[in-house]
């Protein structure tokens, strides 16, 4: 029996907004497993807290409950919900990649350097990091004339390719993907799918959210469905409650 790289038990996330005196539930009772060389797809309606699960794993969000058990490359088990900040930074640099929906980068940095960055952080020479970045950008069909300028002014689809290239180039052990093809044309989306299949074969474990059920079907080895937080706890309900008491 293969052991999972990632196993989540009872994950929940809610936000406490002090100013408004509100609790906003996001994800609740999430259980899932991700294996090397496999893709686990997260599905569910908007508001089911899919992105919050990915951000909770990466610790951009502090989990409210549950265990996020990650087995690192030395076989050591870490609960990412509890791991200290330095451990998280190390895992982000070395093992866990995240392709988010939005690209954040330095104003003057060239696209090539943005993509090469994760490799440079790992100690690769700038030269070799740039070469690999170029290969990945070419594979993702990003016109070469864009490589030397900053992605700050790129279109949604161009930015998404830069973001993907940066996430894919470092071949993390675990890759989190948040709607990786949402703003791409069909031809480019097809390329991305090909690359995802390729790195799956190389053994990368992936947890992904797709905007299209067909992609879940094509790429998902396992599918985990999230349900929105129970009706009595939705934001709307809290709003209404507050109105009643106001």
């Amino acid at each position: 029996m293969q052991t999972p790289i990632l196993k989540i038990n009872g994950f929940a996330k809610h936000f406490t907004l002090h100013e408004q005196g509100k609790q906003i539930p996001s994800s609740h009772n999430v259980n899932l497993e991700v294996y090397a060389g496999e893709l686990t797809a997260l599905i569910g309606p908007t508001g089911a807290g899919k992105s919050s699960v990915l951000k909770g794993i990466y610790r951009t969000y502090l989990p409210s409950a549950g265990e996020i058990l990650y087995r690192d490359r030395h076989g050591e088990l870490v609960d990412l919900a509890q791991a200290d900040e330095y451990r998280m930074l190390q895992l982000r640099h070395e093992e866990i990649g995240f392709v988010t929906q939005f690209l954040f980068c330095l104003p003057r940095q060239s696209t090539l350097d943005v993509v090469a960055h994760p490799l440079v952080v790992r100690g690769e020479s700038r030269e070799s990091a740039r070469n690999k970045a170029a290969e990945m950008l070419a594979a993702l069909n990003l016109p070469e004339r864009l490589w030397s300028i900053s992605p700050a002014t790129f279109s949604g689809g161009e930015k998404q390719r830069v973001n993907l290239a940066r996430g894919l180039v470092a071949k993390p052990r675990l890759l989190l993907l948040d709607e990786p093809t949402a703003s791409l044309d069909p031809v480019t989306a097809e390329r991305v799918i090909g690359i995802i299949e390729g790195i799956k074969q190389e053994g990368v474990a992936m947890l992904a959210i797709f905007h299209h059920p067909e992609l879940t079907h094509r790429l998902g080895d396992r599918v985990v469905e999230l349900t929105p937080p129970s009706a009595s706890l939705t934001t709307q309900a809290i709003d209404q409650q507050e109105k009643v008491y106001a």
Partner: protein
Amino acid sequence: MRKILEVRNLSKIYGKGCPRCIESTGPEADTNMCPHCGSVVAIHDVSFDLHEGEILGLMGESGSGKSTVVKNLYFDQTPTSGSARFIEEDAKHEMFNLNAAQQRRLRNQRFGMVYQNPHLGLNFGISSGGNIAERLLMSDVSHYGEIRERAKELLSRTEVLLSRMDESPAAFSGGMQQRVQIAKALATNPPLLYLDEVTTGLDLSVQARILDLILEIQQERNTAMIVVTHDLGVIRLLTGRALVMKYGRVIESGLTDQILEDPQHAYTQRLVASAL
């Protein structure tokens, strides 16, 4: 990554102080001035670690005590209480127990400081190259030719025109002055840099280039940095972890993206919301 700095319970009170200073100040009291004796509790009980090559952000509103933290760690001031341990590969220094000469050595050779106000970091009475030479002379380099070479190297690294190295920084733009300050801070290749609002007040495009320079330096030399700023954009660009300060206390700390996207404390939530 190795730990290079360990700050514990650092406090700085301006004024005589009284037994009620601490309980009467801070975020809950909504002031840093003691109503009983008028002393200012600029920082209280500040603790954190810093690792090699790490960039840590200190954020918070004006007057929250950010600069006081780095001033104490650079020996510009003496703390009221608390400790800081600077850890080198072969030695550990209890920073506030060192004598003046030992402190000067750390300050001149192992630390670098870049102030918001270039007047604090540079001597406007001498040339830009001279400013760097001065710092090199205070460390171990004393051969004139070598000093001039190093100064050239540093200024070109920070993109200051070498043709202007013999001019006083007084004649330079704000962005250029910051570059000279950075070159000077880097002169002894220190493992630890303090950057206090280095881009505040500069044009956006000038800011962006200086921020890039800082990141490049961090990558090339693996320099650890403490970055003080009230600009959340700078915090996001430069730092991996951050501390949020208010009225001299650390009210929240964590991974930078977490603090900005999932702030826990009411004050941080307001701070982040107002910057959007």
